[in-house]
């Protein structure tokens, strides 16, 4: 009995050491960025960010927000302009497409779905040159609308795939009950299926929002004018050629990442509800 208890204790200690080690290694860069952002540049350079002594300031945040060359404020504005429609539009289209894939039969359904999977597997870099020519010919190069279009198209495939799998798992009886009660296809989709899919919708929205908000590659490829720079480009551009203000960069990074983090926190209740409340067993 005592030997068994000793074994369990040892197991408990080892698991804790491993988990804590991974957690510390994982959070260390974030702590570093957070500390650097609230300490004056001179102290970071001299003492390093790990030193808790010294002064704390919000100056880096104020400077990053209203930097005359590359400001987080303008980046926020542009990022919101791109991210909100590039999340809502593909979400709406993908939800409709996913429902059709999940519930209806039509010619070439399997082929279309395979095309969708192929698009999902395609690396972004492969699409840059054709996209550049396309946006250029449409007059959308260096325009936020162009970036919205690219992200919308890019997000559609995986969102459709994700939501189709979710709809497949929804019990058909839930929809049939509405059909017997007199509801048509559109009413069933908007009044029953969509509200019941809130956990999936929230997940998809959060992932797509974060993806678009954090995107650097497409923004770098298709935006030229600093006035159009989204927040990731603005923060990256704060790094000078000869001088790097780590405090400014860290503050800009924290402000950039705070929006998706806030969104995750806001949508969390839907995930929880999805787990415990909305899935009713008979």
């Amino acid at each position, binding site marked *: 009995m005592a030997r068994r208890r000793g074994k369990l204790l040892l197991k408990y200690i080892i698991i804790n050491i491993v988990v804590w080690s991974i957690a510390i290694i994982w959070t260390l860069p974030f702590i570093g960025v957070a500390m650097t952002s609230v300490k004056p540049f001179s102290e970071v350079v001299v003492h390093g960010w790990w030193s808790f002594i010294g002064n704390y300031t919000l100056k880096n945040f104020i400077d990053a927000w209203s930097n005359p060359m590359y400001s987080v404020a303008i980046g926020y504005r542009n990022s919101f302009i791109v991210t909100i429609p590039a999340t809502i539009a593909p979400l709406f289209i993908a939800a409709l497409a996913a429902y059709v894939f999940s519930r209806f039969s039509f010619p070439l359904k399997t082929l279309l779905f395979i095309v969708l999977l192929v698009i999902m597997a395609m690396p972004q870099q492969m699409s840059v040159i054709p996209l550049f020519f396309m946006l250029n010919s449409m007059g959308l190069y260096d325009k936020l609308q162009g970036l919205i279009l690219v992200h919308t198209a890019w997000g559609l495939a995986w969102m459709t795939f994700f939501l189709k799998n979710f709809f497949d798992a929804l019990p058909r009886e839930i929809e049939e009950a509405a059909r017997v009660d*007199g*509801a048509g296809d559109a009413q069933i989709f908007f009044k029953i299926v969509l509200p019941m899919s*809130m956990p999936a919708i929230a997940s998809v929205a959060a992932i797509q929002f974060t993806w678009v908000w954090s995107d650097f590659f497409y923004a770098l490829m298709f935006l030229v004018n600093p006035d159009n720079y989204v927040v990731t480009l603005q923060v990256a551009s704060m790094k000078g050629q000869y001088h790097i203000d780590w405090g400014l960069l860290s503050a800009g990074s924290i402000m950039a990442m705070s929006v998706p983090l806030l969104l995750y926190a806001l949508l969390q209740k839907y995930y929880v509800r999805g787990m415990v409340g909305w899935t009713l067993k008979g």
Partner: protein
Amino acid sequence: MVDVHLKGIVKRFGKTIAVNGIDLDIRDGEFIVLLGPSGCGKTTTLRIIAGLEKPDEGRVLFGDRDVTYLPPRERNVSMVFQSYAIWPHMKVYDNIAFPLKIKKFPKEEIDKRVKWAAELLQISELLDRYPHQLSGGQRQRVAVARAIVVEPDVLLMDEPLSNLDALLRVKMRSELKKLQRRIKVTTIYVTHDQVEAMTMGDRIAVMNKGKIQQVGRPDEIYLKPANVFVAGFVGTPQMNFFDATVEVKDDEIILDASDFKVRLPKDYLPVLQEYNGKTVIVGIRPEHIYPEGHAPTTAKKLSWIEGTVDFVEALGSDTILHLNTGSMILVVKISGSHHYEIGSKVKVALDLSNIHVFDKESQVSLLYKKQREVQSS
């Protein structure tokens, strides 16, 4: 309310025939139960009546109206699903009000009807709750309230009690039956539970392999089963079956079951005469076999045999004996609690007035067959 007629309904799923030529007439205001094992086609039949499936052949009539190809919303039917299918994102009130809102009823009328249905199902205090805040029984009531709120012509129920615990199921059985009597809606109820069917149905349609085996009142189904399937499916413990050869000698009928012989009364002569020398299937229910001292005084035609006690199930209210007669096990049901030693010899009497004889090939009850022949002539 309306009478429902199924005319030659056939439904195939690929190569599988789920429903194979069903004809059934359901009377206005009747509570009919479709009873059968899993995969017998009862739910498919119900879904065809609801309009959720289209039959490959045949017609569905509500009164004189052919609704075979009409969508569910044009049939004025309601359905209670096995999983209740209540919408988790809507409060109980909105769940019940949904069909009325879809049909664009005025707001006051919706409110009035929802409250009426909730009161009838005793869930008035739950209207403001979400389904996940309800117990299984309460959810079931919500599903029934939603079904009756539109005052449907036909109420369809697909095993609505199967997810409830045993005690609640018994309670809900009687409540559903009372509710149906009160609102007098034509009700088609699907179940695989024979007790549910026997206690709730005005009539029962027993189904197997996509076909209706017998339609009748619960007592008819139990006492005069049409074939071996119905006889075996209805009744717990199951009816005893054994093969026997018919011997007709000087107006006397003897069933030779190798271990024992049963001398049948002359009443069976018209039915069994043509089976002289042939093998038939004999069936007798466990409660129609009486150990010595347990035969009711009303039972006059008895045939005694002896067996060894193989197993005893003491249920408290009943005692189930498994008797080995040599080549078969006879199950005997005795009312009350009794003690029997395993391996002891017990004499039992077969109640010949409750014996069933089935054709070996077609498995049809010979009495039932004779009755049908008389009726058709």
